[in-house]
């Protein structure tokens, strides 16, 4: 297992290299020019040109790429063109809100979606199943920002229970931290609750048809034990897979959610960097996200061995 994990971690290196080259090339050919944004609307073309030269953006592709890779090999993600701050420091400033949002969303999603899926499978064909699946359709269909606005309207503006926006670091207390995350996590989690509930239902329906379930019932086991101990464990592999994919998708969803709820996370940093063409920041974030994606996949593979002893690497 250890050697497998090590191999997988090492295999991320070529993936990261390809991602790095791809992202750098894409940004190089993409239209837009940070020097124009920096210089402002009143600047002359000559001013823009000089700023571009000072930033090294007038250098050939290979020179720029080589210099970036060289810094990367020294664990230096570079400096933001706009803020003049190290990219690593900017990411560090923003990572806590995004990780917090993803974590709360994930916990919320699993706590809601898995029981919903199990119940829907148990009550398949009944009105309970239909209500749960109708909710799933709703979750899939309504965009995150709409759910966000509705939640903010009800829980922040109408009933004044939670703040509209912002983020409080965990260091300032658990409740202040959590209260800023509840609405965005629910908004972001809606689509994943829908997705995981449906997958859980499908996987459970298949397992519930198995002979050993019938045997368990014949032996007089309680419904709860059958559903959550025997059936759910055997339906876990597809559920874990979807949860893993969900984590990767959360990164994308966080971009919108962080904008709607003014959370200073990596999603907003990404958008700001793209709109301004802050190349070093974009490259740093994409590399980080790629690494997280690969890591999540590795964790999922390892989790398989925990839920299904037949799987060994």
């Amino acid at each position, binding site marked *: 297992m250890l050697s497998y994990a090590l191999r997988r971690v090492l295999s991320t290196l070529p993936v990261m290299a390809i991602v790095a080259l791809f992202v750098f090339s894409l940004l190089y050919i993409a*239209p837009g020019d940070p020097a124009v944004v920096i210089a402002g*609307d009143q600047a002359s073309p000559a001013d823009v040109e000089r*700023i571009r030269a000072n930033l090294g953006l007038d250098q050939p592709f290979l020179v720029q790429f080589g210099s970036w890779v060289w810094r990367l090999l020294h664990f230096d993600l570079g400096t933001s063109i706009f803020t003049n701050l190290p990219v690593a420091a900017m990411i560090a400033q923003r990572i806590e809100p995004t990780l917090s949002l993803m974590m709360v969303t994930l916990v919320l999603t699993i706590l809601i979606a898995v029981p919903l899926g199990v119940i829907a499978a148990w009550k398949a064909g009944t009105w309970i199943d239909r209500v749960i699946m109708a909710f799933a359709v709703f979750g899939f269909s309504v965009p995150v920002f709409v759910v966000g606005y509705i939640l903010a309207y009800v829980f*922040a503006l109408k009933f004044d229970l939670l703040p509209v926006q912002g983020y409080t670091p965990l260091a300032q207390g658990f409740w202040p931290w959590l209260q800023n995350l509840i609405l965005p996590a629910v908004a972001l989690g809606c689509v994943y609750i829908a997705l995981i509930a449906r997958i859980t239902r499908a996987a459970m329906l298949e397992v519930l048809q198995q002979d050993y379930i019938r045997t368990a019932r014949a032996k007089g086991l309680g419904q709860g034990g059958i559903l959550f101990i025997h059936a759910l464990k055997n339906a876990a592999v597809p559920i874990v897979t979807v949860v893993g994919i969900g984590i990767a998708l959360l990164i994308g969803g966080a971009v919108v959610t962080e904008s709607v709820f*003014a959370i200073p996370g990596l999603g907003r940093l990404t958008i700001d960097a793209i709109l301004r063409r802050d190349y070093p920041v974009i490259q740093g974030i994409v590399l980080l996200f790629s690494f997280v994606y690969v890591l999540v996949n590795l964790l999922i593979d390892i989790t398989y061995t925990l839920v299904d002893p037949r799987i060994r690497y």
Partner: protein
Amino acid sequence: MDRRTVLKGLAGAGGLALTGFAAPAIAQGASARTLRFVPQANLANFDPIWGTQYVVRNAAAMVWDTLYGIDDKFVPQRQMVESEEVSSDGLTWTFKLRPGLKFHDGEPVLAKDVVASLTRWSARDPMGLMLKAIQNELTAVDDKTFKWVLKQPYPKMLFALGKGNAPCAFVMPERIAQTDPFKQMSEYVGSGPFKFAKGEWVPGAKAVFEKFADYVPRDEKPVWLAGGKKVLVDRVEWVIMPDPATAAAALQNGEVDWWENPITDLVPVLKGNKNIGVDIGDPLGNVGSFRMNHLHAPFNNVKARQAILMALSQEDYMRALVGDENALWKPLPGFFTPDTPLYTEAGGEILKGKRDFAGAKKLLEEAGYKGEPITCVVAQDQPITKAFGDVTADLLKKLGMTVDFVATDWGTVGARRAQKTPPSQGGWHMFHTWHAGADCINPAAYTALRANGDKAWFGWPTSEKVETEITNWFNAKSLDEEKTVAARINKAALEDVVFAPTGFFLGYTAWRKNVSGVTKGPIPLFWGVSKTA
């Protein structure tokens, strides 16, 4: 249900909000001493000479002081300067700094700091460049006195040093001001009424400014950038909110105190909230622009450009932007900001009255236009340019022109408009932008009005008449003379169609009523603003 409806619904709900806010992060006393402000844009960098975006200038005006400050009559008043003297031939200016000036690091402001700051500024600012071109020497005479010796008189000296247009002549410590003006500085030490809390700066999310206890304000009443800048709060926190609905909700909920520029759609909701005050923010507003490329057909022919003026309805452009809010726009048959001394409608008949499509089509024909695609590069992520772009597409089609509508983002427009290549090879025929009215009060900072060909702003217009009159304006010695020249500039710029003005528009600002002292101005002014719990 579309996004805008949801936005309005959410914002409207604020009126029903119960009072108070769950678990504020800061205690009541501290809250009353902290002003939370939502600026127009993200403060992504903080070097006001290197980066000249309006938002940087606005933040910089809190941290760095200027030698002079413009008041609401556009007259430069002494700010850091105690006295000035100009020689009888107009060539030697001697300035003396007022006592008590101190940088945020505790060091006194010296003449050598001013000299280094003006040297850096004059490498980037259009007026500074003019001064540099006629400069004999700029030297510190002693710790409090500096001298600027010129080769020819420059009557607009004090305006140049006090203007609020970016880049402003901010004074920095010598060691910082020695930074290459085309490279970003990394230390933010000024002598203004606020200190920048660099450690709390999260670009894209928050910027914090603390009251500078050692700042000695002038005794005069504060008016715009002039007078005594008395700070009445301990901290100003800039909270960046990219989503207007969130900003509206946060303002209604008391999570922020002042929102610089609420979007027009949400203003009725804010006006309906008894805890919120709403008024025009910047009385100088903005001038909308339909910018044509003078290098390529058909707009390299003045008749084609005149055809656009002849058919363009400013009301259409303004209504697309501000809807039914009549208080927010004015027709602009000219280039200078309405209600300012140089405003003129000379030569503006072509933009007035019923639009003449037949005449415009005839002019297009005479210009040799034969249905070639017109590349309109339109930024969709800016509400102003998006609204203008839609009107333009319709206008050009009505004129029988073939529209190649390139819907893109502002970053791409910024890069593409610098391309001089033909539109079919990555260039362009037209784009939209807007200019702050403060930049259009006279030709000094009005880069977009220049018509010196290759050196002109994007579109590269050439008009000897316009350029001659702009030079005359710089040499004008009285306001009456300036007005006469401005009328000639306006007429010439409309005849040669330097660009097509799409109208004059204003924007609102909104604040909680427990905040007092919010005044109209070309930038948000934080001195004199106080807050109660």
